[in-house]
Every structure is written in C-alpha cells, then in structure tokens.
C-alpha cells in the first residue's frame, strides 16, 4: 500500500472506530482487492472466495478495536484471509486439487499482460500446496518481502525462502511441461 493510501487508511480507520459505517465501507473498498484475490487464488472458487472474503471483513468489523494502524490493518487482513483459506482447504481437500480449467476465474485484469501466460501461471499457482501458494501470493500479489511473509504466516524466514525457491523451480518446470504439451 502506498504512503498516501496508508494515510487515508488511518483516517478511515479512526472514523470507522468511532462508528462511522461509511468509513468502514471505505476500508472495505481499499482492501477488498487484496482480500478477495488472496481468497480466490487460495480456494480457486469465485463464490467460496467471495463468502470467505466477506467473512474476513465481518470479523474485522467485530475486532476493529484491536486494529492499531493502517499497516496493522493490512497485515491483519492478509493473515486472517490466508488462515481462513488454509483452514478451508484442510476441511475441503478437494478444493486444493482443482482441475486446470477451474482456475480460470482467478485471472487478473492485468493490462498489457499476455492473457494466455497469465492464465497458465494462475493455473500452476493454484496447483501448489496451500502453504507454498500462500507464500507465493504474498510475494508476488502483495509484494511483501520474505521477512514480512514470515511474520504474516507465522513461519520462519528459512521456511519462507525455501518455499519460494521450491515453488519457483516447480513453476519453471511445470510451465515448461505445459508449454511443450500445448505445442
């Protein structure tokens, strides 16, 4: 999040804490892309991701007094979203083993990006196990550094680095396979 956005976040947070529903709505708008995208790329199902993301914001509303700052809010939302997603995947293991086609809904509206490449990468990311997938999403979707990822997921820095290294080499390998098979 940019410094300006973080500043606005503080302002909306203060107002939301005072009971301003519109300010809470602004907080939702500011963070819904991140929360929804994390949930969507974790559970690979639009409806389930929407439900999960809504539950996260409801939980936020109930725990608003525990949020200390805009930065803490972003950290809290990522952490709760990923924990809920991982719990969901544990309860419904079939969500983790999604077919290639089912991951199509997770494609971003990236401007200028190759749609085929974007779709393939999203599909391959969706096939990773839950923990390395969460690490990869925090690294490339949320642009966090390994230390922040470790703090968010409650992992050691070495585990995060190891997940990143293995996931990237797996993606390279699998991408090569799918590229060859599509020729």
């Amino acid at each position: 999040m940019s410094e300006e956005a973080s500043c606005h976040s503080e302002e909306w947070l203060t107002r939301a804490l005072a009971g301003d529903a519109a300010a809470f709505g602004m907080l939702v708008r500011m963070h819904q892309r991140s929360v929804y995208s994390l949930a969507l790329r974790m559970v690979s199902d639009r409806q389930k991701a929407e439900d999960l993301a809504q539950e996260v914001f409801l939980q936020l509303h109930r725990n608003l007094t525990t949020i200390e700052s805009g930065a803490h809010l972003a950290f809290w939302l990522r952490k709760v979203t990923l924990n809920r997603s991982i719990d969901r995947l544990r309860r419904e293991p079939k969500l983790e083993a999604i077919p290639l086609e089912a991951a199509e809904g997770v494609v971003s509206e990236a401007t200028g990006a190759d749609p085929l490449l974007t779709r393939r990468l999203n599909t391959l990311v969706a096939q990773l196990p839950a923990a390395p997938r969460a690490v990869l999403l925090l690294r490339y979707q949320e642009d966090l550094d390994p230390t922040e990822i470790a703090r968010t997921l409650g992992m050691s820095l070495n585990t995060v680095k190891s997940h990143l290294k293995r996931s990237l080499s797996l993606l390279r390998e699998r991408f090569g396979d799918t590229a060859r098979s599509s020729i």
Partner: protein
Amino acid sequence: MSNDLDDDLRAALRPVDPGEKFTQSVLARVAEESTRSPRGPRLHTTTLRWASVALSISLVIGILVAHQWQVRRTQRGLEARKELIQALQLTGEKLDLAYRVVNDEEHPERGGEPGA
C-alpha cells in the same frame, strides 16, 4: 514466457477487484449483524448465567433456612414433650398426695386399728 519469471508472476497475480456489489454485500451483512446486536445475545447469556448463579445460591440458602427451621421445630417439640411429662408427673404426685390426704381423713381409725 519472458525470461523473468518474477515479472510474469507479478503481472499474472495482480489483485482482482470483486466489484462494488461485493462492498455492498459486506456492508449489508455488517448492518444486519449490528441490528441483531452481537452484544445482545452475549448480554443475555451473561444475565442468564448470573440469574442461574443467584437462583442456585437462593436455593441453597432456602434449604439451609428450612433445615434450621425444622431442627428448631423438633427441639421445641422435644422440650414441650419433656415439659408435659414433668407436668404430668407433678400432677400425678399431687393427685396421689391428695388421695392419701382424703383417704386418711375418711378413715382416721384405720391408722389406730390393731393389725391395720
């Protein structure tokens, strides 16, 4: 695929906006939850818990009071019985004495009769 997998991943994994409908749904659910008042049921539960504790204490006190009352009643009954027995004994003795006095007055000669 470009040479830089990092850049490709960043481009592919850009956040997706769920849209304004999502925001409205969240706000509607928050409003619904607020009208249901999450503090209401919690307060209700707390009140119920306190009420049940108060009821239990009252019940214990009630049982103790009833027990004490029963003990005192039994003691009073025993004391009354004792007093009644004493009164009956005294009455019996007095009646016996009176009978002897009356008997002596009616037959004063008996005391002087030879072989009496």
